[in-house]
């Protein structure tokens, strides 16, 4: 198989580095890609489950823009709805009716939702959820799971990161994932002080395996929060609509008070949402929270079309089945080369690691070899499956995976 080179990406990056801090920042930064030079930096176009970089290389995309792409890039139904709305108006002095329609649809779709509030990014609504919980309880403290990701607000970043100061964490406390007793201890140690416990439906940190909730974990957490007047916030930004259309909490059988949505909500159009129970509606209303583009009607139209299409396709089940097929095949191929491929999390957003080298260098080389052959795998982050990944994509992926294993076997001889 031919392997890719990235001349134009590199040239563009050099220009970027002069005028943009670190060239490409945030989650699209090449920094966690290993080696970064084996990955494309700039995309020129995308369609379905594929994208093309500026050098003309074609990739089957298993990152799905880190989650937002869920129906395939440039989905005709979603784009048509967005374009139709654009022609009527986008950011106007008053919101468009589509906002009400979308909120109604979300309330109908998501089990715990009695209301919906829209913003742009996941971090907008995780912060808003904390403010709402504080407004509702009159309490300050927040409990988070260590290693969880809720965006880039200072409270959500780990201590020691540039620009983050100690005071940003003065009200934040951490527990380990799945450690109900640890949470209970914190609650007992801080009676009447904890406003909220926020966590993702299951634990999907970078660099390591994902962990599903232990049996009984969520129902115990839910009961503990209820008993102590603590707002239970589920950050469904990444899992949302990839596990269950009614909310990932339904998948795991519990009921949070607030739920944050973003990534899969509008197939790439910029919008996020906080949904919540009736009991928190007044508190949510009292918190002043807004942004210049939060009423953009185009994204709302795209979101409504996306949610309808996801529902029609039974997308979570479809993506989990596709993911399972892909991964089962990959595990077999790995085994045929003498390697162990460990898959954790849910198959629609799996965490995949080769376990034969503890340092992950072999795994990193393997992901890079796949990417250079047109199957975009990162080695540090869970992958994403969309409804647009076809059987043909899966077959091609298997072929590339097979060859990449041959290449790393030659290099590592193990």
């Amino acid at each position: 198989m031919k392997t890719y080179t990235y001349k134009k990406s590199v040239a563009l990056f050099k220009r970027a580095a002069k005028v943009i801090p670190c060239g490409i920042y945030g989650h699209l930064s090449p920094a966690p890609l290993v080696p970064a030079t084996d990955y494309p930096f700039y995309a020129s176009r995308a369609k379905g489950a594929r994208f093309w970089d500026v050098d003309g290389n074609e990739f089957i995309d298993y990152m799905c823009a880190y989650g937002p792409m869920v129906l395939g890039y440039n989905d005709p139904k979603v784009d048509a709805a967005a374009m139709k709305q654009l022609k009527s108006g986008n950011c106007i002095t008053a919101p468009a009716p589509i906002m009400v329609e979308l909120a109604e649809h979300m309330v109908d779709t998501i089990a715990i939702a009695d209301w919906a509030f829209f913003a742009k990014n996941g971090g907008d609504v995780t912060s808003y959820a904390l403010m709402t919980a504080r407004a509702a309880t009159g309490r300050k403290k927040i409990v988070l799971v260590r290693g969880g990701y809720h965006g880039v607000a200072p409270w959500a970043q780990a201590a020691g990161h540039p620009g983050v100061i100690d005071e940003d964490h003065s009200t934040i406390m951490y527990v380990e994932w799945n450690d109900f007793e640890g949470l209970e201890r914190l609650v007992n140690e801080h009676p009447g002080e904890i406003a909220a416990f926020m966590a993702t439906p299951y634990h999907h940190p970078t660099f390591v395996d994902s962990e599903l909730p232990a049996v009984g974990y969520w129902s115990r957490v839910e009961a503990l929060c209820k008993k102590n007047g603590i707002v239970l916030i589920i950050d469904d930004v990444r899992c949302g609509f990839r596990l269950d259309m009614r909310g990932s909490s339904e998948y795991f059988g519990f009921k949070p008070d607030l739920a944050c949505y973003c990534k899969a909500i509008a197939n790439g159009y910029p919008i996020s949402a906080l949904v919540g129970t009736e009991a928190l509606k007044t508190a949510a209303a009292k918190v002043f929270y807004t942004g210049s583009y939060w009423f953009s009607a185009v994204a709302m139209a795209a979101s409504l079309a996306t949610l309808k299409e996801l529902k029609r396709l039974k997308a979570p089940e479809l993506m989990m089945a596709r993911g399972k097929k892909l991964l089962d095949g990959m595990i077999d191929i790995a085994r045929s080369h003498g390697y162990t491929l460990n898959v954790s999390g849910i198959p629609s957003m799996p965490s995949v690691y080769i376990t034969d080298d503890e340092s992950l260098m072999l795994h990193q080389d393997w992901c890079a070899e796949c990417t250079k052959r047109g199957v975009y795998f990162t080695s540090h982050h869970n992958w994403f499956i969309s409804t647009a990944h076809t059987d043909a994509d899966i077959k091609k992926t298997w072929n590339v995976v097979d060859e990449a294993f041959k290449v790393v076997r030659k290099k590592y001889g193990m």
Partner: protein
Amino acid sequence: MNTDLVKAHLNLNAVLVNLEDLVVYDEEMAALSKNWALSIQFIVRNGPRAHITFENGKCTVGRGRRKRPSIILYFFSPRHLVRMFDGKAQPVLLKGFTKLGFLLKDFPKLTARLEHYLKPTPELLADKKYLALNTRFTITTAAFAVRELGLLDPVARAISSHIGNGVVLMKVNPEGPAAMLRFQDGGIEAEKGDTAKPMSAMLFRNLKTANDILNQKLDAFTAIATGDVMPRGRIGMVDSLSLILDRIPLYLG
């Protein structure tokens, strides 16, 4: 937290260690110290201890106390030691009065030369040999400073406590210099040199990039994309290490 205490630890345990390589790689200093046969014990009240031994043309710097040093330098406080390193105070000589000549005349030549290598200017860095030594010392200082900060600086301690077990290698390709940090169950050890099987690595394309990164002149994100810095292995460890490295200038420099 006591900033002077951290600075004292850094000076004794992360800066002085470079004397070991100074007498190897700087010919003049090698010649100067060739016949030295003595040892210096540093004692800081309510602070760190360290010792330097010169023997058979070799210099060894260690933490804590050594047996029968020829010279004992005493400091009333971490601040006292820090002021000495800034050239603003003198130590108290507890032992080694017969070595006064060495202390006043010879040893300062060595420390002055080390200081010269640790205080680069763009002109100095244009010199290949200077760049090589400055980079070597910077990597060593960085590695040994991470150990001190990981134990003493509250933020660095919080970071290092979650870093996981294993060796993180910092190395200039292809042949070094290199230094390692061994994280094991909350303990941290720094070491000069290379290893074939690190848990993670921060590899620098060449001396210049290593120098720029470690002296905060270039951000790692950009440098990784251009291939000037290549993290490998457990990237979370490298990320955490970078965060601790970023804290060194708060105390040194």
